[in-house]
């Protein structure tokens, strides 16, 4: 995911962040075969309008770099595998798969008889074409996720074998989302440069995109031939039509829900959460998300934060509770310290290294360095009121530890460039919408020389632990390695300064059933129905 995505995701998150209540229910089951709407008899038909918090730019999974894009994709495309709200990977277009003992070869057995919305067949050939397109097209945004792939081979029309260059434990998790989404070759080739904005009839998913009006709405009609079934045997999907609307302003979005023009949204601002929770006409769900919010120091040689003790001084001086409660999250989400989020199986709830601000400790660290008071600047994207407010809050907290943080507003792109070139002098604010596998939250951000390692962090021990975690096939061992690495890159020799975890929200009208909230914050419409 790009910086831009992260920033946009952040904008979204000002609205989307939600407190992760541990015991939050996840009604309605969720996905295709495993879905289990509670009611015995579910009514078919009807239209649900869903509001997301900004407009998409790409419908082509290969081109997509924005979090919001994926709202549409889950309705129109199927991927090879999917994930449950708990984070377990389940069969989807791949009915089952086997992994070779050395962890380097994956064989997928595909569903048969599946057709794209345009009538062309989904088969092994199609899978190979899609995966090769994602990983080999020069300006594809998926090359990073599929980098471990060496070859894709068609074994027979219903079997595909993927060989990896090295064992890569998180490989399956890459196929949950865009890198595993299957698109009709015919539609892509016919669409040309416009495909990414007009991907009509391009997927095999439960809904068919029939209308796309930029900045206004996207209409999906039911795919009557979809293969998925609910746990009770019902043929899915239930709804006749789904409309997804981008509504950027939080209050406008909420008004639309309250007045019934929109039946569901996944972005509620923190200030509005108490009122929607109390409203008997609506159901508000909130679970822990996958994403985090953080600050990037520049740890390159010759820059101020090359000094790790300075990074740590800033980190321990922060009052994370106050940032969560009074910052743009307005209390939605949870306080956090590292990149491994509460909804990851590798999450350690006891990892709370900076539970209280340690002003004296911060002052001592700065004094230990012995170069006088700590003073630096934070780069903030101009015009983004939420981020500016956050920066000023952090500024006031650091001042208590005699740390002077100046705020410098720049155009968003300039910040991206400075970070990318490792030229920013102080801190930048970065948020990451998160990946189902913790590797997607960690590796690219702290491993030496990775493209998204914008803090130019390099720690041999961390690199070793992370490499081992990628090749480890045992989950407990992976968790252990990741947590060991986390202890180093958060506490001992900090790479970034993490301060909170994001949450996933879902607000639905009372008559909407079977709508589950997922940690990735994306809606799945196939199990959704309207109470008659």
């Amino acid at each position, binding site marked *: 995911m*790009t910086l831009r995505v992260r920033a946009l995701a952040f904008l979204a998150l000002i609205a989307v962040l939600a407190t992760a209540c541990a015991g939050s229910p996840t009604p309605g089951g969720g996905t295709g075969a495993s879905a289990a709407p509670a009611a015995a008899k579910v009514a078919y038909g009807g239209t649900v309008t869903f509001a997301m918090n900004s407009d998409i730019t790409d419908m082509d999974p290969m081109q997509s770099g924005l979090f919001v894009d994926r709202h549409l994709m889950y309705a129109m495309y199927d991927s090879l595998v999917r994930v449950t709200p708990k984070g377990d990977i389940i069969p989807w277009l791949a009915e089952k798969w086997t992994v070779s003992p050395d962890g380097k070869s994956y064989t997928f057995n595909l569903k048969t008889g599946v057709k794209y919305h345009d009538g062309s067949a989904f088969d092994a050939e199609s899978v190979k074409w899609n995966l090769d397109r994602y990983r080999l097209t020069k300006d594809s945004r998926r090359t990073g996720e599929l980098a471990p792939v060496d070859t894709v081979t068609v074994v027979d029309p219903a079997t595909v074998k993927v060989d990896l260059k090295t064992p890569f434990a998180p490989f399956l998790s890459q196929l949950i989302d865009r890198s595993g989404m299957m698109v009709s070759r015919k539609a892509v080739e016919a669409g040309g440069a416009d495909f990414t904005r007009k991907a009509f009839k391009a997927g095999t998913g439960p809904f068919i995109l029939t209308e796309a009006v930029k900045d206004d709405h996207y209409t999906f009609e039911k795919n009557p031939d979809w293969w998925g079934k609910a746990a009770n045997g019902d043929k899915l999907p239930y709804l006749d039509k789904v409309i997804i609307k981008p509504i950027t302003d939080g209050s406008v979005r909420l008004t639309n829900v309250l007045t019934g023009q929109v039946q569901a949204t996944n972005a509620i601002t923190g200030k509005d959460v108490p009122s929607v929770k109390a409203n008997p006409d609506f159901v508000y769900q909130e679970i822990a998300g996958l994403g985090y919010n953080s600050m990037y120091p520049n740890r390159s040689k010759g820059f101020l934060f090359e000094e790790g003790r300075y990074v740590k001084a800033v980190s321990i001086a922060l009052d994370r509770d106050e940032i969560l409660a009074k910052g743009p999250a307005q209390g939605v989400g949870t306080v956090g310290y590292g990149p491994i989020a509460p909804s990851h199986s590798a999450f350690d709830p006891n990892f709370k290294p900076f539970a209280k601000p340690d002003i004296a400790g911060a002052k001592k660290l700065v004094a230990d360095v012995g170069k006088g008071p700590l003073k630096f600047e934070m780069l903030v994207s101009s015009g983004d009121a939420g981020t500016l407010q956050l920066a000023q809050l952090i500024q006031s907290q650091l001042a208590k530890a005699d740390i002077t943080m100046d705020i410098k507003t720049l155009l968003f792109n300039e910040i991206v460039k400075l970070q990318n070139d490792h030229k920013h002098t102080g801190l930048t604010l970065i948020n990451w919408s998160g990946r189902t596998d913790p590797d997607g939250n960690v590796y690219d951000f702290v491993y030496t020389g990775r493209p998204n390692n914008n803090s130019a962090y390099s720690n041999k021990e961390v690199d070793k632990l992370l490499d081992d975690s990628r090749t480890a096939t045992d989950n407990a061992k992976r968790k252990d390695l990741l947590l060991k690495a986390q202890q180093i890159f958060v506490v001992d020799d900090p790479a970034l300064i993490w301060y909170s975890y994001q949450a996933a929200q879902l607000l639905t009208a009372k008559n909407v059933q079977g709508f589950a909230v997922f940690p990735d914050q994306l809606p799945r419409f196939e199990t959704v129905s309207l109470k008659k």
Partner: protein
Amino acid sequence: MTQYILRRLLLMIPVAFLVTVGIFVLVRLAPGDPVLTYAGENNDPVTIAYIRAQLGLDQPLPIQYAAWLSKALQGDLGRSLQTKQRVVEAIGERLPATLELGAAAILISVVVALVVGTLSALKRNSVLDLVTTSVTLAGVSFPNFFLGLILILVFAFVVPGHLFPPGGYVAFVADPGDNLRRLVLPAITLATASLAVNMRQVRSSLIDVFGLDYMRTARAKGLHEGAVIARHALKNALIPVVTIIGIQIGAIIEGAFITETIFFWPGVGRLAVQAIPSQDYPIVQGVVLISALSFMFSTLLVDVLYAVLDPRISFGAAEA
């Protein structure tokens, strides 16, 4: 007359050239690198170089400019770096919203300005005149983004019934009633900024006209007062209207940037405001170019109409 128009058009060519150079340089002056944003996660040097070359951004600036200009002359403004949509298409999609807002603002502004301005001109130095001239100045001084906020707050919290929604856009074809309801607040906001100027314009040009020789002559010829107004003032009443619309076009383009941002109105101005931080060169260049050109042409049109309508202006001495 034809000669005058031709001369004005000829003079526009070097100006338009300077405008395109200015836009091109301005957009590229900003630090930062759009290719990085475009490349996204795959920001390894090879991919970045590939994308840069594909977009032609590795060429020297003069060559990029020549390529852009020659395409622009053929009506092709390129594709957005972000959405890959054709800029012409992107602008075309948003133009209806901007034009609708602009037309509504013109309507409000012209009607109110004509009525109040005429009354104020007829009853010069009356209380009404004094009030309107003061209100006029107050209006010019009112920041429209603040007015927009006040209107939103008032209709969200003070006036019951959510009469006018705080923002957002619904296409007219989709729901005419909702479309108009959403139009009211942004249109008032946009109209107010120029209303003040317009009112003053109507007042002073009517006062000028009333005092003119040919009006006096007409009266002296014994023409009935009604006939004087009908035959002479009517034609002259068009002058302020033309001027207003001329002023309004600039105000609409300007207002589009701010008013559309406040009210989440998916128009051309908002398109540009959103494209600025990510340096979507083609979009920013396209919108600014089109707004500058339409501004230039509307100014020309106003001058020509003016010359046609106002007997005092001779065509030769127009260029100052």
